[in-house]
């Protein structure tokens, strides 16, 4: 049988490979191999399964075989490290490119994939390859084994050393085959020999596969992406080929996994292996029978059914095979072994080991922990500086998976071995988009842990900005005449990076200061957002991230920005003795800023319409852009157009932050929102189905109503929408808003009716009294009760309204606080706490924005525990504390309920 085999690549595989890998060249190779005629050689066909496992089918052939292989290979590293190449001498050598082999329909010819070897071994995927045996008809002669043998031996030593299973596979020399050695054994050989040695070769192929897995599926993970290789995809190709029944299985399993898993990026090969494993367990019993069958008629049964059985066997094979062959050579590497391989002198071994680790770690917290405890993380971090892209890419992939999840110790471990600077260094060095995605994905994961945020800022802020944010945003420092304004590109790298910055931007005053002062960052983010608005492309994650960053950076601008003192509204009285609200930077995080302002009377009633916007001699840049009235239009556009709740919330939050405080710019912002016709837009959003949007909008309206004109307008036009969000009695409205939201709305109403009997009147006309009384009397929430109570008291304080109220059947008792005077919040009860520091609103708001809370209270962050949340977006509300304080005077506190966690002790001295 002159076997000419044409290998066809399954389209799917090829594509996947292509995608995965970096810009590799696609090479089609046609290899014709002539094998020695007449020599009984065992032929091994190796099929690389999606998993990256290799299937081999060995057939003894006495005949010459010509094999034509067409490979589609992207960079095929032949003989990485040169190891594989030697094999090339033998016809088998050609096979080194496992990929090609796989593609071969005849399957039988499929060469052992070096690449997958490591993986394979781990996965029991091998089995699959066995299944292919039927294909063996096509028998090829693989001299390979021999060639590999040397290599294998080397590897073998590694493995063995590490290993668990000592002598399972005897190396099957060709001699075995003559016996009808079945594919199974052969494979082993492959593994033993080929696999490891092939590693280099495999790398090429494997790499492809792996790279594929790495594709991001960012969505599910807000912050953290674990990416896996796309196992399923690869497998699919197999399915295409009917011959490989085994393939089907794989595909199924693989598919399930791949898709199910959140972590998109993994190494394919491993993935593949896994599915098989599961099956294997089941199949094990069956193996022997199958095997026998196989042996009896390996070649004869090309049928799928038989194949399938084979495949399964293959999976199991290790035991069965082992027993059969008694080949001592092969065993699955265990974790310590894999980690040890990270330090192997041969680069492909390193990269395969790293890729395998990535795979193992995917969604497996236990493994992640084990890797950490086995000191694998520093080794991986060390590989980031490896000159070979395969190595640092795989290491990066493993780190990304390890960094994902709730186990912050893993994140800390990466940080402790200087992983963050190493990642940043690599980011500066590489132009490989895939690697950049991995790096930024890893940083995104790391940034979800509070204590690492500052570290990331210290090491990576400017680099992330310069390398990713600015170039991808389309913004240019100094555009020259030739340059056209560019639109932002919503790449994965940009998304990851903006997600990372979004997280770190919530780390308090110092973090905000650093981001604001980071050259080009604010400019680029604004440009990106404007570009999004221009393109009407506002619903994606990148936009969401950008808006969240902007919101966070807008928080407390009136106190934290350099030179803010100059803009303080003189009408805002400073309490005697307070240093001034605008303490700078870190200091301001202190709680005192607003406290002392408590006694301040409202000076804010003036009509800002009369204010002229400040004239600028030169265009503003950097952080100044945050609070220029021009941004109002941007946020309003987002509020109008975006369908993304998070984006809506963030944009409303930004307006809320900007309209808070008593400084010139917030006056302008408040007036600008009105002039840009933003109030109706906000009011419209009160009808949103999203709780948090309603909340953010509500608080924004409250801040905006500091402006007297706004207050009048909001009182006239927004009251009904506000009231409609309130629960009536014990029945919640359809929306069923959360307590925080209800409280926010009540506080906004309170603000609006304060100092405005007109607004109080419209409140009564909106049928609000009934709801307020019901909340006041029956709400299960102490905070809601208090907030409602404040509103009622304020309403009752307008003597001119009492007449009308009485006519409606209300009397004074309805407006009295219910029974229990609200006890002070436990928090406040601390001796050390100055209540003034904790204005009511503030606390309420704290509920909203974790971040802010910290800053405001200066207490230990309660937030930390919540790290897992996907993205923390600090909303902030900032609140005009002063304002509130003033208005809320009577109320003791809405505050208390907010803190769920025990507060750390904090003592004044």
């Amino acid at each position, binding site marked *: 049988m002159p076997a000419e085999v044409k290998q066809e690549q399954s389209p799917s595989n090829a594509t996947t490979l292509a995608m995965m890998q970096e810009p590799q060249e696609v090479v089609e190779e046609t290899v014709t191999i002539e094998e020695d005629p007449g020599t009984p050689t065992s032929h091994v066909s190796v099929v690389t399964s999606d998993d990256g496992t290799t299937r081999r089918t060995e057939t003894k052939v006495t005949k010459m075989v010509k094999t034509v292989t067409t490979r589609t290979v992207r960079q095929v590293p032949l003989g990485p490290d040169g190891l594989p190449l030697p094999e090339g001498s033998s016809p088998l050598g050609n096979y080194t490119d496992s990929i090609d082999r796989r593609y071969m329909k005849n399957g039988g010819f499929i060469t052992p994939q070096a690449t997958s070897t490591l993986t394979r071994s781990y996965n029991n995927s091998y089995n699959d390859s066995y299944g292919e045996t039927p294909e063996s008809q096509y028998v090829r002669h693989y001299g390979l084994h021999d060639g590999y043998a040397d290599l294998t031996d080397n590897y073998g030593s590694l493995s063995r050393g590490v290993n668990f299973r000592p002598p399972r596979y005897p190396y099957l020399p060709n001699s075995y085959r003559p016996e009808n050695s079945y594919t199974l054994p052969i494979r082993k050989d492959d593994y033993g020999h080929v696999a490891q040695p092939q590693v280099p070769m495999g790398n090429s192929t494997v790499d492809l596969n792996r790279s594929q897995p790495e594709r991001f599926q960012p969505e599910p993970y807000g912050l953290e992406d674990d990416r896996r290789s796309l196992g399923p995809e690869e497998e699919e190709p197999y399915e295409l080929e009917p011959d490989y029944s085994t393939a089907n299985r794989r595909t199924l399993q693989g598919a399930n996994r791949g898709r199910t898993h959140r972590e998109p990026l993994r190494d394919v090969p491993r993935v593949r292996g896994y599915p098989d494993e599961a099956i294997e367990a089941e199949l094990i019993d069956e193996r022997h029978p199958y095997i026998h069958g196989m042996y009896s008629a390996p070649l004869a049964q090309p049928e799928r059914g038989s194949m399938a059985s084979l495949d399964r066997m293959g999976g199991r094979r290790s035991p069965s095979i082992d027993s059969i062959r008694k080949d001592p050579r092969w065993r699955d590497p265990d974790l310590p072994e894999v980690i040890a391989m990270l330090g192997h002198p041969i680069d492909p071994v390193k990269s395969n080991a790293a890729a395998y680790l990535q795979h193992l770690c995917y969604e497996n917290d236990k493994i992640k922990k084990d890797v950490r405890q086995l000191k694998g993380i520093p080794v991986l971090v060390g590989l980031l500086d490896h000159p070979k892209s395969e190595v640092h890419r795989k290491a990066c992939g493993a780190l990304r998976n390890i960094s994902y999840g709730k186990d912050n110790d893993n994140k*800390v471990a990466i940080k402790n071995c200087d992983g963050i600077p190493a990642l940043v260094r690599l980011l500066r060095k590489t132009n490989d988009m895939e690697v950049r995605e991995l790096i930024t994905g890893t940083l995104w994961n790391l940034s979800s842990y*509070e*204590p690492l945020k*500052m*570290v990331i800022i*210290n090491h990576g802020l400017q680099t992330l900005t310069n390398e990713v944010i600015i170039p991808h945003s389309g913004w240019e420092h100094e555009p020259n005449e030739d340059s056209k304004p560019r639109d932002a590109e919503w790449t994965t790298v940009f998304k990851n990076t903006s997600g990372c910055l979004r997280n770190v931007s919530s780390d*308090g005053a*110092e973090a905000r200061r650093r981001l604001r002062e980071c050259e080009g960052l604010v400019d680029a983010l604004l440009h990106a957002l404007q570009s999004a608005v221009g393109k009407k492309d506002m619903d994606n994650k990148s936009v969401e991230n950008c808006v969240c960053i902007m919101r966070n950076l807008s928080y407390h601008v009136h106190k934290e920005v350099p030179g803010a003192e100059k803009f303080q509204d003189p009408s805002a009285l400073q309490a005697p*003795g*307070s*240093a*001034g609200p605008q*303490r700078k930077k*870190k*200091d301001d*995080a*202190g*709680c*005192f*800023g607003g406290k002392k302002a408590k006694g301040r009377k409202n000076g804010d009633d003036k009509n800002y319409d009369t204010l002229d916007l400040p004239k600028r001699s030169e265009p503003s840049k950097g952080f100044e852009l945050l609070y220029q009235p021009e941004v109002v239009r941007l946020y309003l556009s987002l509020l109008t157009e975006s369908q993304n709740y998070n984006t809506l919330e963030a944009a409303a939050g930004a307006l809320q932050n900007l309209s808070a405080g008593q400084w010139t710019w917030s006056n302008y912002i408040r007036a600008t929102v009105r002039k840009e016709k933003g109030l109706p837009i906000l009011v419209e959003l009160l009808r949103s189905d999203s709780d948090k949007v309603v909340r953010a909008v509500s608080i924004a309206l409250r801040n905006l109503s500091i402006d007297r004109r706004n207050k009048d307008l909001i009182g006239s036009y927004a009251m009904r929408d506000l009231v409609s969000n309130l629960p009536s009695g014990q029945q919640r409205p359809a929306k069923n808003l959360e307590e925080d939201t209800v409280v926010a709305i009540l506080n906004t109403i309170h603000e609006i009716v304060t100092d405005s009997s007109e607004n109080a009147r419209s409140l009564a006309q909106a049928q609000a009294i009934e709801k307020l009384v019901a909340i006041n009397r029956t709400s299960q929430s102490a905070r809601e009760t208090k907030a409602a109570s404040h509103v009622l008291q304020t309403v009752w304080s307008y003597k001119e309204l009492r007449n009308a109220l009485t006519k409606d059947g209300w009397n004074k008792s309805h407006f009295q606080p219910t029974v229990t005077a609200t006890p002070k919040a436990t928090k406040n009860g601390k001796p*050390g706490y100055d209540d003034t520091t904790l204005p009511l609103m503030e606390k309420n708001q704290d509920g909203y924005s974790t971040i802010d809370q*910290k800053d405001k209270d*200066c*207490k*230990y*962050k*309660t937030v*930390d525990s919540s790290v897992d949340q996907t993205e923390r977006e600090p909303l902030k509300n900032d609140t005009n504390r002063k304002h509130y304080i003033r208005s809320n005077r009577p109320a003791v506190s809405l505050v208390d309920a907010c803190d769920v966690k025990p507060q*750390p*002790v*904090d*003592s*004044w*001295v």
Partner: protein
Amino acid sequence: MSFVPGQPLTAVVQRIQIQKLRQGENLILGFSIGGGIDQDPGQNPFSDDKTDKGIYVTRITPGGPADAAGLRMGDKLMQVNGWDMTMVTHDQARKRLTKKNEDVVRLLVTRKSLEEAVKQSMGSFPRQ
């Protein structure tokens, strides 16, 4: 900034002397502290090492004595009047600071910016 109690520690420290402000019966330093070996170090927002049970300055009264003396929020107290503050309970630290018979406290504090300044300048003395 983390260290192991009992192990040699290299820290860049700053001396800060605070003259307490007398208000009636009370002596006021004008800052608040958090941390201590009896507290949950994980909640300390200021420490890099979340196992650090040291005493940290959590808040500063603007314009108060501590503010005037240059103490910053987030500073870690190393010593108070010569007493070690790295291995004390919260209450012990508080008591050390609030001795009625001492009008002046001398602190040894360290802060991230100090360390970074030193690191970055590689030996040049930090400005602060």
